[in-house]
């Protein structure tokens, strides 16, 4: 029996800001993991990845990351992907405080 396909989300970094983004089902890029499209089919995942990687003027380094369904939408599985949804653990910077790269506004 073939192993069950682990669902995926398409993720990348934004070209201009450099922060983490996810592809939604309606072809937007979101900064929230739970708004991403959860892709349960391998062939579809490849198509979505190609679609993402073709957007060379918007995104950098698109790839498929394992995810699972959750109460509010897809949730990350691997700890690296969990950190990517939050930001660094040594400062309250990044997504965990709703902040983007670039200068802080004091």
């Amino acid at each position, binding site marked *: 029996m073939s192993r069950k396909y682990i669902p995926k989300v398409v993720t990348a970094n934004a*070209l201009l800001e*450099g922060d983490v983004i996810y592809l939604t089902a309606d072809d937007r890029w979101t900064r929230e993991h739970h708004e991403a499209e959860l892709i349960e089919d391998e062939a579809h995942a490849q198509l979505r990845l190609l679609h993402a990687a073709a957007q060379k003027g918007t995104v950098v380094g698109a790839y498929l990351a394992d995810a699972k369904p959750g109460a509010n939408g897809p949730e990350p599985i691997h*700890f690296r992907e969990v950190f990517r949804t939050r930001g*660094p*653990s*040594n400062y309250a910077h990044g997504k965990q405080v709703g902040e983007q*790269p*670039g*200068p*802080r506004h004091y």
Partner: protein
Amino acid sequence: MYSYNDFDEAFVRERVAQFTSQVERRIDGSLTEDEFKPLRLMNGLYLQLHAYMLRVAIPYGTLNPNQMRQLAHIAETWDKGYGHFTTRQNIQYNWPLLKDVPAMLSALADVGMHAIQTSGNTIRNVTSDHFAAAAADEIEDPRPYAELLRQWSTDHPEFQFLPRKFKIAVTGSPNDRAVVKAHDIGLRMIRRGDEVGFEVLVGGGLGRTPMIGQVVRDFLPKEDLLPYCEAIVSVYNLLGRRDNKYKARIKITVHENGLDEIKRQVEQRFAEIRPTFHGHDQDLLDDIRAAFAPPAFRNAETTAHDQFYAADPVYRSWADTNLTEHRNAQYSIVTISIKKHGETPGDATAHQMRVMADLAERYGHSELRISHEQNVILPHVHKSDLPAVHAALVQAGLGTANVGLISDIIACPGMDYCALATARSIPVAQEIATRFDELKLEHEVGPLKIKISGCINACGHHHVGHIGILGLDRAGVENYQITLGGDGTETAVIGERAGPGFAYDEIVLAIERLVHAYLEHRTEPTETFLQTYRRLGLAPFKAALYPAEGEKDAA
């Protein structure tokens, strides 16, 4: 101190202009990422986990106050108000926006700084002893040689596409504070009779295949430095493997071809190119040397220091750990700890950078250094000024008395920032430091170097830590492997793996057990952790790390 000549200035400005237009073309879509990536890396711009990162070179770790203030200005204007000093004597900004990077580079150029060759398969920032020109044990200031190497290697047409990155370190002292044995080329100044020259080591490096450099020339006259280094790099450029990135460093070239063969080829190449150097490099070196003339040392009473030392235990504790003997008996070398317990190793805020710049200007003959141990140094402070310096540092959160102790940890950015990481390293450092501060043990434990890397690339030098910690990903969970007995000095050794790794929430306790084992086994308080380890070997430490296994064996 050395400042740019016209050629440097024009070159750096031109590179900023080029990169400005490259960024514009990337943003308007005329350059793809595949085209842009090598260009941005040539200018020190990485893309990490949460944002871009700009890596700025601090050649041989030397800065003047205006440069430090400019680093503060950049941190505040285009980043989140701080910078990260690294083991490679660089500073990294973790949050720049792509569109702002040209302005940052331009601001750096205003103070004679840049991010060129901080990435890519080139000769990287030349590093050196952070106590250069101040240390009591020094033969000669190594920085003029480092600067000569910098000028020679910057934009060197033959060496822009080496098989892999190439790192050179120089020390002018018998006590190696620049980890020269873990560099592609390590240069140790030595005396032979009346003559001063270099012992040349080649093929050191950490990363996935750690190796200690080997002596390729036991005595190199100083005036042969450039042709000899050129001979090494050009032999490597031909022999180095380009088919496998993990076998591309010169350490593997030396390993695969044998030291004798490398020696033979280097000497042969050297004999060919030596005659093409007509002494222009030596004229240049003379000019450079003039720029590194020692400051006009003051002659004054040092009683203020002695009085504070006798009266104030906080000051005394700081003086005991953070001051180093200066060649001028009235002076001290001050190491400012960027390792406050619980904070990120190597991170300084813009405010702290300005405080350090002001102190350097007022009390330190306008010199600052960045150490590979991620601290900042005021190399020349008159002893009478030390109490004032200490008071100002304490106010800015920079007065921590822990240099060389267990909380003075090197940690790479790890999975909090780095895209290559397999685990976090910063929070492990924070927690170890906090724990030993709570235990009030670190002064009793004495000299102990912990170094942490977040993956096998070993940017945190874990192989040469007395205790090394390597963060790995074991089946989707962070796992930390311990190595023991590493040493990054003139007696360099790669640490030994202690055994199976520890989970994130076990690692601090494991370190605590190691330290207690040391305290139990040392013959006397002056026997350091490393000495005890060398005397007893792995066994007692292993027993402390894995107590349950001992019980199993006994059962």
